[in-house]
Each structure stands twice: as C-alpha cells, then as structure tokens.
C-alpha cells in the first residue's frame, strides 16, 4: 500500500524540482549602474579676491565613503587676507566613483527655489557681513544670487575679511522643497551639507 502511494509522489517531486531549478537559475543580472545625485563626498569653498581674479583661496572637506561609516575630514581650512573682499563660490561633488564624478552644484542650481545656504562664523572675522551669520539669530549674509522667486540661494556670496584673527566658519545647505520662502530659516527642511571649517585671517 505504501509504495503505491509514494511512487507517483516521488516522480512528481523529481519532475517538479528539475523544472524549478532549471527554470530559475540563469537569472544573474546585476543592478544597473546608478548616477548617485544625492550623495556629496567633496565640498570645496573657493574664495576669489574681488581685486585679483588670480588670488583664489580654497577650503576642502571630503567624506570619501559617502554613506559608509568613515568620518568626514576637513583637508584644507580657510586662510584669508585681512581687509580683502572675496566672492565665495561653492562646489559640491560626488566622487564615489572616481571614473564618473558628478557635479552636485548643478543639481542645486537647477532646484535653487528649494535650496539655501546658511552660514555661521565667529564674530569679528568679517567686517562685512558683521555679526555671527544667519544660522542662529538674525545676522546678515551677502548673497549674490537669487532663485526665481527672488529669494537668496548662496552658491555665490560676498565676504570682507577683518583684521588678523581666527575662528570657525560653518556652511549649511538646506533642502526646503515647498518650504523655502523669504522668511524661511535654517530650521526648515532637511540638511544636505553641514560642515565647519577653521578660519584664519592674516
């Protein structure tokens, strides 16, 4: 009685398993390569002397593994000349794939009505703007660019260094989709960048 029952059962089992394991094992595709436009691994600040376009001071922070656990490193701090006016330009890159570096600056420019840079700095480092920036409190920042709604963006800003001193300079990029207005502050939206550099004026 037992073999009568198990025999067709065994055949079926055999047949079905052959079917399965031949049918499904040849799928071995990898996910396609992605253009990672969200990750920023390199933040470069370029201060160009308004009087001398050849005089460019850069500051650099990198997080080479992006979403990995490795900490962000500030490789170059800011060193400015006293009593000099600079135009600060931001460059944001994703260098996770060294063969295919992505320019995130362009991304931000495309969506400038959703983005704004905020700055915090040690009081007395600059003569213009004065104060400690617009991160906490109501300090001024001299934005040189505007979005379509006439609100500041901050990819270009103007700074005049004071006399010799030291302090810190913090750059925050906020992403404020649907939240950015003339009165929106650093407290609205999510953070894309938050990096603090040492600053020296000499």
């Amino acid at each position, binding site marked *: 009685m037992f073999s*009568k*029952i198990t025999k067709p*059962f065994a055949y*079926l*089992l055999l047949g*079905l*398993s052959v079917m*399965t*394991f031949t*049918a*499904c*094992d040849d*799928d*071995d*595709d*990898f*996910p*396609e*390569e*992605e*253009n*990672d*436009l*969200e*990750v*920023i*691994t390199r*933040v470069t600040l370029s201060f160009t002397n308004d009087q001398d376009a050849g005089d460019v001071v850069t500051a650099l*922070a990198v*997080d080479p*593994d*992006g*979403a*990995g*656990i*490795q*900490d*962000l490193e500030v490789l170059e701090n800011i060193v400015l000349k006293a009593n000099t006016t600079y135009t600060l330009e931001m460059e944001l890159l994703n260098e*996770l*794939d*060294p063969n*295919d570096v992505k320019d995130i600056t362009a*991304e*931000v420019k495309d*969506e400038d009505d*959703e983005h704004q840079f905020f700055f915090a700095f040690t009081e007395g480092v600059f003569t213009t703007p004065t104060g400690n920036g617009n991160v906490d409190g109501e300090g001024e920042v001299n934005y040189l660019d505007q979005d379509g709604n006439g609100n500041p963006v901050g990819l270009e800003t103007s700074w005049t260094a004071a006399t010799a001193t030291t302090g810190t300079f913090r750059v*925050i990029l*906020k*992403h404020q*989709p*649907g*939240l950015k207005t003339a009165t929106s502050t650093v*407290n609205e*939206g*999510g*953070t*894309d*960048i*938050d*990096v603090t550099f040492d600053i020296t004026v000499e």
Partner: protein
Amino acid sequence: MNYKLGVALLIFWSLYFSAIGIAQQQNCIYTVEGRVLDVENRQPIPFVTVRLLGESKGAVTDAEGYFQVRHLCEKEFNLRFSCVGYKPIVHHHDGHHAMPTIYMATDVSQLETVVIESEGEELFFESATIDKIDSRSLAIRPASSLGEVLSEIEGVSFVAIGSNVQLPIIHGLYGNRILIVNNGVRHGFQNWGVEHAPEIDLNNVEKVAVLKGAAAVRFGPEAMGGVVLVEGNGMELSTPLSGMIKTGLESNGRGGYTAANIQYGGDRWSYHLGGGYTRLGDRHAPDYSLTNSGKEEVAVNAGVRFHFRDGDARLSYSLVDQKLAILRTSIFGNGEDLIRALDAEEPLIIQDFSYEIKPPYQSTAHHFLKAEADWNRPGGVWHLIWGGQWNARKEFDVRRNAERPVIDLELWTNDLQLEWEHVTWGPFEGAFGVQLFMQDNDNNPGTGTTPFIPNYNTNRGSVFVIETLERPHIRYELGVRGDYEVTSVRGRETNQDTFSNEYSLGNATLSFGVVKSFMDWEFRSNFGTAWRAPNVAELYSFGQTGYKLSYGLWRYQFNEDGQLQTNKILTEEDEALLPEKGYKWMNELKWDKGIHQLNISAYLNLIENFVYERPIGLTSTVRGPMPAFIYDRNDALFTGVDVTWKTSWSPKLEGVLGASYLWSRNIDKDEPLINQPPNYLRYDLSYKVWTTEKAQLILGADAQYTFRQYHAPQEVNPEDIVNGVVEINEDTPIFDFREAPDGYFLLGGSINGTWKNWTGQLSVYNALNKSYRNYLNEMRYFADEVGRNLVLNINYKF
C-alpha cells in the same frame, strides 16, 4: 457524554470512509454527517432540517447540532439545510470531503449561512491555538489595515509607521517572523524592516485565522511567531446570484471607501468578482493635522471554480494597488534635525488638510494569480497549487530628485505546492507535501541612488509530513519538515563596482502537539521549532533610509581597536551565516460553561541568532552628524500570557474581558529588546436592543487601557551623542532616542442596525479624542496618534 459519543462516531465514520475505497462498487453505502452551528455565537442549532434535493432522504440535527444521513447511493448530491429564523443554504457535497460544518446565520444577521468543508490549512494545527476574526469585524472596517483588524485578537498587535503602514505582531514578533498566507500561498512582498506592510485587501477577505503556535512545519520558514491565514471567497456551488455593495465614510481623513462584489454558484461551476476603492486624506491628531498621512487604494479580485466528479479546479486573480503617504515631519537630513524634531512639542511641519499624497510615500502594486486543483482518489485527496505573484514597489523620498523613486523593486514569487491528504489509516489522519518556492528580486534602474538592497534569487525546496492521532478525549499532532534553500545575491557598491555571492542553508523543523478535553475544559499544548535564513536586507543593507544610516550583518566589522568599519563586504567566510532558529511552546486552556467562556494561553519562545537593528552612534558626514544603525544578532526569549473571558450577563448583554502580557529579553546581553508590544487590558460590551424577524439593533462599547512599555531600552538623547556627553561603542547597552510613551486609555462605541437587505453601523474610535503616542509606532518620536474618528458604514445586499 455527548462529546464522547461524537468522538466515537468520528472514529467510527473515519474507519467507515476508509472502507469506502475498498468497497466502492457496492451501492447505497455512502453516508454524510456533519454539524450545524450558529455563525454568530458558534453554538449548536438543534432541529435543523437536512434534506437531499431530488430524493426523499434526510435528517434532523440533534441537541448538539449533529446530523447524519445514511445509505446514500450516490457519492455526490445537493444538501439543503433549513430552519425557521435562519437563512437556508444548499450545499453540494461529495463523499471525499470531511465532515462539513454548517454555520447558519439568522434572517436578520449581516452574515451569510456558510458551509465549511474542512478547516483547511488549520486542520493539523488544532494544538497550535487558532484565533479567528469574526467576519463582522472585517465587514465594518474595510478601510483599515490587516494589522489593525488582527489586533483585536489577544496577543496580537501591530507595529506601524504612521496610520497606513501597519504590520501584524504576534507575541512580540513581526515582519519576517510572521508568515502571511493569502489563500494558501505565502504572500510574496518586500518583507523586511518595519517599513513594509502586507498588501491585503480586506474587502476580499472572508476569513482570517491566526495560528499563534509555531506552525512552520506546514508553512515553512519565517513562521517563527505565528501564521496569519487569510481566505477569500470560497466560491460555493449551488448558490443563486448574490452580491453586496459597501460604502463607508470616515470623519478623520475625510474620506471613505466603496466596494462591490457578486458571486454565483451553479451545479458545476461558480465564480466571484469584486472590486473596491479607498481614499483618505490627511488624518488629524487631537491638536494638529498629520500632514501627508493620506491613502489611496484600488483593489480588484475575481475567481472561477469548476467542479468535476472527482475534484475541483480553481483560478483566481487579485490586485491591490496602493499609495500610502508617510508623515512629512518624519524626514530630515541629519542628527541635529532629528534632535529638533524630537524636542518639538508638535510636529515641525504642519500644513492645512489635503488629499494630496506627496513624498515621502510608497506606491505598490501587488498582482496575485493562483491556479489550484483538487483531485479525489481512493487513497486520499491531492492538492496542486501554483501561485504567481508580482510585487512592484516604489518608494519616494523628500530629496532633490523627489520625482524619482529612491527604492524601485520588482519581486516575482513562484510557489508550487503538491499535497496529498490521505484517508484515515486506522486512527491516523495526515498529509504529505512537497513545495517549491522561487523568488526573484530586481532593482529597477533610474533611482539615482545605489540600491539599498541587492538583486537576489532565492530557490527553496521543501518536504513535510503531518499526522494526527485521535483517541477518546485526546488528540496528538506530529509534523516533520525539511527545507533547503539557495540564495544568489548580486549588488553594487556605492562606487558602482559589482559584488555577488551565493549561499545555501538547510534545516529540519519539528512540531508536536496535543489537545485534551475533560468536561467543560479543553487543554492544548504545542511545541514547535521554526527557522529562517537572515534575509537579504539584514545581510546587505547599506546606506541611508530616512534619517539614519544602516549597515547589514555583512556590511560592517569591528577592527582590533573596536572601531566600526564599513569598507569591506563580508561573506560567510568572514562572518558565519547562521540561521535564526526558534523554539516555541504554546499552551492554551479553555473553559466553556454556558454563560462563561474563559480562554488562557501561555507561551515561551526562545530564538537563537535573533537579528535586530540597533543604534551604534553617530558618524560625521557632509550632512553633519548622522545616526548610524547596525544589524546585530543575539539569543532572545519571549514569554507571556493572553486571557479572554467572555460573559453573557443576560441574553441581551455580552461582555468580553481581554488582557495580554509579554516579557521579552535579549538573554545573551541581559538587556531589553526594542519595539516590544506593551501590555494591555480591555473590556468590550455589546447589547442587543431589539431583534425582530426583519430588523435588529445592537449597541456596543469598548474600553482599553494600554500600559507603558516598562521593559523598553534606556533613553539616550541624540543631543548628548552629538555633544560627546555620551560615548557609544560596541559594548554600549541598547538604547532608544526617546523613552517609551505613557500608558493611555481609549474608549470606543458603535450602533449597528439591520433592516431587510440594509445594514448600517456608526462607530466612534478614540471617542474621548485623547492625545497619546503609541510605542509601536515609529512616528511616536514626532507626532501624536490620530484623534476621534467617526465611521459610518452602509452595506446593501442583493
């Protein structure tokens, strides 16, 4: 005494049926027997007329609802059940099916009279504690989630992300430790994390049963905490064309649903067809709008059954297409934003009410096609099931490229099952089965982000045997199962280099149960093992989801200095591939003394290599400090008690006391586990105001107190981590960003009326409009739960 007789009869007739196979040529040897119960209270109905259509034979049920018609010449026939005050039914019966149970509904009931031929998949797990959801609860809240409906069972609750994504949690386990079996096939969806709820349309559900014991022997890996069995339309033969139109309105969310279905059963074939649409806008907490918490869902289902002399063939299809909003205020960039959101009394983003679903949201289409055949042979019944599922999921986040999904996955699931349920061999009854399971997960291109989980294929073959042994007053159940699975993984690192791996795991699973009855008592006990392979998300997760960075078991390691490293993808050679193994012992004691029905169940569940996610600190990134989480594994113990005590205070007034207690711990590290359900106490009252032949009015009230979760991990404020007040390392005990919220008391009520073909119900949830936070809702960090909700349902039957 009656029970004794019942069991004796059952054994006698079981033997008798097995004899049929041998003596098939003789005439007029067939017998049908069964039992008739009231669908509402499951009490036997005496004096029900059972008649064979077209013949003079028939019977009447006894005091215990049993009936028996003997000396039948045909193996198949139509039976008509009728009784004054109840809806009659015609049932097409064939000799191969087990003793049918007829659940009769009163003329005024919203339910229909139904015939259950066998208890289906639960059949071999009487010892594993089955709880069924009253189909009336399903009918009145079709706009809610499966998790929400299941939570009315003691010991079952749900973990949630907001008001839309809700996963059932049984005895402290959820996600891929609870198996959801939809119409006999395991639901194939992105079952990882708490972010993904099963796509089940409640309008297409006729029955829900929860197996709280380890029933992995029958259903396979992942059934560590229990199994949720969802059954759709049974497609009964010989039923006239009928249908129902349901509509509902909800005040909170200013939306509602509408659904319709029809069914017809002829002599040889039957079908059903249905569909529904649900739309809800932003929900409202007592003090503010929960911005971006709406929901939209379209569901369609259809099925056809063809009955031939020795069997049945069925084909069915269902689609659930949903768009679920996630609370806007839960998304932020870095640790400092998180601190601000945690510290805020009210959500940081509150906007005016809107129906619009904006990022963050999830959009999922789940297609399910099933072909099934039953073939009755002299030795037993063969079941062949093929289920194909296509789950397409897109998740959208608040980001620069918000119009592109951040997660875009397609999951194909193929399930082939062959089972043979043998006729009784002496006192034994049982089944053999073989199952093949294939799953193929692919990332669709164009997300603009490195895939969070890789592409993978899992192929599994399984064999099982279950046997039950009936003796007077006692029933034994024994099951053994073997599984072997191979997984191949193909992914990309963040620099777009590829990686791949292939690994396999096998396991044997065992289950033993006993059901013993004496006088008004029934005792059941079940011991079962269960297992599952760590899923691909637990092994390979890498990167940012929401406000945190997550690293899977094979994506991080600690160097000699105890520092976390994520620069290498590990394999089983670096870090062993250990399956999660569960050992669950479940006991239940039932006492049924007319007006009192008491049900106490106690359980103990030990899980080896329990995988969980825990915070490991903050890492500084371009975005500022980000909370980092790793997947870790330890042994964990879960134990608890569930109590239900039903009392009929008078023929009109009925009360149910429910309570649930759970204690769980990481026993390796002797520390609490995170996100475990808090204990609660509830009392439900229902009062039948009046009942006539054509109309009925019932009032209901329910009260529930949920305690604070006293065994929650300690609080570590992320501000203290950012400021370096607290140092986190490999040995830091588990912590959470906020302590568990306070306990809360909720009150609800309902008025339910029936008149001819119409049924209406007005219910109120959170009647006191209480502001509270639910420990099991991840949104507790940021916002209160929804406030008062008035729900009006009107159903019309034809």
